[in-house]
């Protein structure tokens, strides 16, 4: 049992990223896969192949190919979402060099997801509706509770530290990182995996289209264009990305590879009617201010910012207003990954992994589609960066008002 030092008077606020694992439309891999995706800057968005979309107003998405997911005996009882989570976390701990059962036995896990395993919930319910009680599947039922992905992962990897699943719309991945950092700060584990995950499946896609969530929302071309005047909603995607966050002294002691540093991770919530985006009045950005203070970083030091906006006009506008007010016209280059990956609630951990690649090697996505930005008083990452910035921000703002700010720095 690892207790750390609960008597610390100055809780550690920094952690190092020692491993990354990603299950994505681009394949399965670690840091190198993330870096390659950003460098190539080629989108995975295409007409959906996994299920029919005839009759729907939208038909595009970014899907994880079936070939990425194992058909091994071990995975027999794992739902698709659990498979993605296990694979991503397994890749991340392997990259971090955490192999022994003793080491893994101390590691914690925070999974962030927006929709959880609704696919299994629907399948379970259909069993009853079609055949009554005898149509139910006891094997399927555990997957209908959102903590199943974390549970299956902890069993598969032997993780015995604190385990949490956080349900959150929009910024589930960012929240997983922030909560993982809080667990480290509280001395609950020497390392915590933060994994954001969500998947596409027919009922979800069809319902979101009915609710006019994804592009094109009835007008214009179906496309993902965050910050552009032609923006008309997100394009949905799926995937799982896990990052291993570790106390610096623990990583040092075991000679762990270190990719980047998380200097601060703050979150809060702006009281907002559920389902709506918050209205930020009078510079209400205490989360962002706190993140900068905790990291001992000035606004000028932030060279790039990964935003959570994904082409929803209201979302784009609010988040850009926050950036403009905080950083001014010479602030960080603003960027997004959703034009490559599609948008899903657990995407934030991919953004953190991307930020690590940015500060480490100057690798970042380019917003090639951006022709008519909705604001001209901020800077956008339309060109490759010439020098890796020392610090990158991963910023999140969700429907319902949750606000996150994570600062990733070069070691």
């Amino acid at each position, binding site marked *: 049992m690892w*207790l750390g030092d609960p008597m610390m008077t100055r809780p550690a606020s920094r952690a190092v990223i020692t491993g990354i694992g990603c299950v994505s439309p681009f394949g399965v891999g670690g840091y190198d896969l993330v870096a390659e995706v950003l460098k190539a800057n080629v989108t995975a968005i295409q007409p959906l192949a996994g299920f029919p979309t005839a009759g729907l107003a939208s038909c595009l998405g970014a899907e994880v190919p079936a070939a990425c997911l194992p058909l091994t005996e071990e995975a027999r009882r794992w739902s698709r979402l659990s498979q993605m989570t296990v694979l991503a976390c397994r890749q991340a701990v392997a990259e971090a060099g955490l192999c022994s059962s003793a080491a893994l036995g101390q590691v914690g896990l925070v999974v962030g997801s927006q929709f959880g395993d609704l696919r299994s919930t629907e399948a379970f319910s259909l069993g*009853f509706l079609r055949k009554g009680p005898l149509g139910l599947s006891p094997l399927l039922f555990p997957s209908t509770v959102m*903590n199943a992905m974390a549970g299956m992962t902890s069993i598969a990897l032997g*993780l015995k530290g604190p385990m949490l699943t956080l*349900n959150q*719309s929009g910024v589930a991945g960012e929240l997983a990182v922030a909560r993982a950092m*809080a667990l480290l*700060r509280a001395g609950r584990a020497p390392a915590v995996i933060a994994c954001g995950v969500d998947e596409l499946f027919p009922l979800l896609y069809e*319902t979101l289209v009915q609710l006019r969530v994804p592009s094109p929302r009835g007008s214009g071309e179906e496309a993902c264009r965050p910050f552009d005047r032609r923006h008309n909603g997100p394009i949905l995607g799926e995937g799982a990305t896990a990052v291993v966050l570790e106390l610096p002294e623990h990583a040092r002691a075991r000679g762990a590879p270190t990719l980047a540093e998380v200097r601060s991770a703050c979150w*809060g919530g702006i009281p907002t009617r559920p389902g709506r985006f918050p209205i930020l009045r009078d510079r209400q950005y205490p989360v962002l201010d706190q993140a900068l203070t905790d990291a001992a970083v000035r606004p000028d030091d932030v060279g790039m910012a990964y935003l959570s906006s994904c082409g929803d006009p209201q979302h784009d506008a609010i988040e850009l207003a926050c950036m403009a007010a905080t950083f001014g016209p010479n602030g960080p280059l603003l960027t997004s990954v959703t034009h490559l990956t599609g948008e899903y609630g657990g995407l934030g951990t991919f953004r953190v992994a991307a930020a690590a690649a940015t500060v480490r090697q100057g690798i970042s996505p380019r917003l090639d589609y951006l022709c008519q930005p909705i604001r001209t008083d901020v800077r956008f990452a339309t060109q490759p960066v010439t020098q890796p910035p020392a610090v990158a921000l991963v910023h999140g703002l969700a429907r319902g008002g949750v606000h996150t700010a994570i600062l990733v720095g070069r070691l």
Partner: protein
Amino acid sequence: MSQRHVRDDECRVVVTGLGVVSPYGRGSQVYWQGLSQGHCILGPLRLFPTDGFRSRIAGEMSAATVRALGTAHQSRATRFLLAAAQEAVCSAGLGPAELTTAAVSIGGAGGGMLEAEDWYWARYHQPQDTPKPVALRSMLPTNQTDALAFHLRIGGPRESPVLACSSSAAAIATVADLIETGVVEVGLAGGVDTLTRLCFMGFNALKLLDPQPCRPFARDRRGMSLGEGAAVLVLESWQHAVARGAPMRASVAGCGLSSDAFHPTAPPADAEGAVRAMREALARGHMTPADITYVNAHGTGTVQNDRAEAVALAAVFGAGNVLVSSTKSLIGHAMGAAGALEAVATILALETGLLPPTANLWEPDPAIPFDCIPHTPRPATLDCAMSNSFGFGGQNVSLIFLRPDVAG
């Protein structure tokens, strides 16, 4: 009580408010009245059809109570949660200024699933005439937390932990961490869950439900009984509470979090994950097992859970060295809300000097070497008590509370 190394008082976490909605009705007073009288509220489940299932009972909120809570357009879960939170905030005397920066963490497994099921069932049976999927907007647990934050204008860190049966206990532990590490001064932590077809069908399919009211720790126990409800605690730094003259209901001495990494639904025979969680709670509270004389158990009434829990308690405290009782025997298993409901029961036990009993314990299991307080509440003046939640998937949370006047 062992000499406890006192950490900085300003970091110590105290409980200053409580709020409950339970099958007994609205409010912590009526909740305690039911628990302290050992009144088992389990009865026929009427919220949706139960034909063809082996177990058809639950701890269900009366329709009259539900009608008096909130407004009809809100999900059942939101109505429960807002009522419980309102009581907690009022009892703590919290005002808008404190709520602006307060953390809020509401655990739950089902969210607004009941209303989503209504929609899905209608869609299946009448595909040509499906209502709009408006109900789905409140389906996820995060929606209830967002609704609470909006209703009370709460602006601090917000989370919706889903750890099955341990959800709201984890909410309490993680909000306590935020206060201890100086991130916030105040936090609302709790949970909500309603009866849902999903839960009812699932636990029936797993054959984990007793057709009769559950009998935790009994020789002839046959499974759980379902329940529903909401409970919210106001947690605060000691310094902040003293400065504003807040009522002190209890201290949070220590919390433990661990995982079994064993099986999706069953605990390991040696219950080593549960043992670690309890030992971590004790260590973080700078306490020894001898300091604890009462444990509010997870106590679901399944053959395996109760057996494993007894193994864990014996490993930590020694056989027979703590009194144990199961709140679930009285109100059923409220899933994500259970941890918070039982935390409130534990705090009220400390406050009143009366331990709630285990109901339906006509023939205690001789293999469980603990006095599980059968039927009749037990007077006992305690300094501290432990409350455990050992959730589906092997997620263990252990909470220790102190009476506020006990030096800690």
